[in-house]
């Protein structure tokens, strides 16, 4: 590839050189995967802080399956086909699922414990997945539209996608930065947080919504990519300790790196085709989840 090809790929809308075509496809793809990974990393960090649950992650809590279901319903019954429409459906689906999972996880005498929340997420996710299949299987047109999206891929990225996604990402991450010191206080329990002047109810609501919206927006455009939130935050926690003022920005960076690396790996492994990034992250993420769950001290009772 020459410098001319690079420039042509970046700045010209059409070019006939092969290398230039690669650049014009790969650059937005890389930018998009960096943004999505960053958003998922921050989303995971927020969900873990709000639920005080080290296992919280958009995919483990079933939030992105809920987002998917809504997108599928939109495609199947309401003829929805643009990214701008996906994103709102996806966010609504994510919010509703988050509320349901949290509700189920908090039922019973012990209130919500980390493991109960994860179980509620897994169970809800299973139900929602079967609904997705039930809607999709008899409708081949939905199936086609949905197939790539389902496993999580950043391959479809273009600058239009990025433009739709950017406002959600920027406002979400900005909010997360602003809330980090208060979330630090919340990690010491509602009582200490209140004693330190945090409006705990408001903080919990805003940060949960921010986490869910970040994940919903990513899911709308890239499909349900799992485990990034979990991997990104725990890696950073190992290095930087539990201070969220560091964890939140660092999880954005590590999430971005992990997803981009997963995407590149997927292309290498699947060459000449590709393995979607969502498959790679699940492959790495699932064993990490098991490891974390076995290490987890059960804090209930």
């Amino acid at each position: 590839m020459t410098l001319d090809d690079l420039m042509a790929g970046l700045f010209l809308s059409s070019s006939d050189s092969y290398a230039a075509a690669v650049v014009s496809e790969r650059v937005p793809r890389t930018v998009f995967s960096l943004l999505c990974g960053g958003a998922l990393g921050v989303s995971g960090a927020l969900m873990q802080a709000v639920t005080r649950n080290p296992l919280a992650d958009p995919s483990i809590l079933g939030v992105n399956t809920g987002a998917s279901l809504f997108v599928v319903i939109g495609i199947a019954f309401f003829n929805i086909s643009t990214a701008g429409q996906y994103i709102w459906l996806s966010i609504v689906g994510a919010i509703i699922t988050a509320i349901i999972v949290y509700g189920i996880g908090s039922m019973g005498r012990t209130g919500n414990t980390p493991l109960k929340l994860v179980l509620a997420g897994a169970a809800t996710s299973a139900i929602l997945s079967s609904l997705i299949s039930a809607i999709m299987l008899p409708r081949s047109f939905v199936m086609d539209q949905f197939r790539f999206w389902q496993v999580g891929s950043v391959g479809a990225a273009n600058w239009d996608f990025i433009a739709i996604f950017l406002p959600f990402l920027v406002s979400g991450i900005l909010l997360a930065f602003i809330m980090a010191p208060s979330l630090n206080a919340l990690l010491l329990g509602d009582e200490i947080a209140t004693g330190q002047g945090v409006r705990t109810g408001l903080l919990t609501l805003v940060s949960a919504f921010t986490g869910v919206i970040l994940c919903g927006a990513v899911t709308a455009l890239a499909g349900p990519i799992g485990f990034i939130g979990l991997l990104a935050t725990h890696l950073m926690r190992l290095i930087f300790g539990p201070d969220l003022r560091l964890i939140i920005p660092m999880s954005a960076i590590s999430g971005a790196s992990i997803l981009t690396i997963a995407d590149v790996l997927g292309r290498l492994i699947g060459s000449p085709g590709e393995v979607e990034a969502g498959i790679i992250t699940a492959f790495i993420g699932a064993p990490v989840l098991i490891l974390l769950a076995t290490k987890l001290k059960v804090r209930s009772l």
Partner: protein
Amino acid sequence: MKSTHKLQTEQIVAGYDSKKILHGIDVVIPNNQINVIIGPNACGKSTLLKTMARLIKPITGDVILDGKSIHKIPPKKLARVLGVLPQSPIAPEGISVADLVGRGRFPHQSLLSGWSEKDYQAVEEAMDMMGITELANRQLDELSGGQRQRVWIAMALAQQTDILFLDEPTTFLDITYQVEILDLLTDLNRKYGTTIVMVLHDINLAARYADYIFALRKGELIAEGRPSEIITDELIKEIFELDCTVIEDPVSKSPMIVPRGRFHVFS
């Protein structure tokens, strides 16, 4: 340094899920004193403390600080006057002692200000006072119960409030550490004039360390005053339904209760 704040409650009725635990409590917290709330289990002593520390909103009645309802004061501003250490605080895994103590500075910081010289100084002082300076880089999880409690109190100290609430700060600790914690809190009160309000289970330690006692039973305030004035056989009988003899503590000259059970009673 003397605190000039005035904290009082007005006819507090409070409780959980519409089950009323406090039935109209009026107290004025004496300034620069160690105040202890005593009473049997489920008498509402913890509820009273939490209500005064704005952790629980009363059903009716109000808590007034300097003539203003604490629920109408901006929370961060209030947090620079009222500090609270709940009974079983939680900490994120792997947090270091210095980091945790530093969290007490939250109400003094804004998003852009970052850490000031004053913040560092407050943390250093708090750790020094609680004798945990050499533990600064250790992780909280590694410490003993007594050390951990000193770290939590240091965090509350770093908040530098004139009034500090503590909910049973000595529970789960060996007697050695109970005395140590109460000594440290007395240091704090003597050095900075901090008004301390705490719930204690042990009446004899309460009578020794308290300047002022509030005695509760079934959600009502039965008696209040200096331990030497109010701790009598009759009061203990009324509050705890326990026969006892009150003698003078040979060490502190404060009143000391000696319970009379059904056995081993010779006089």
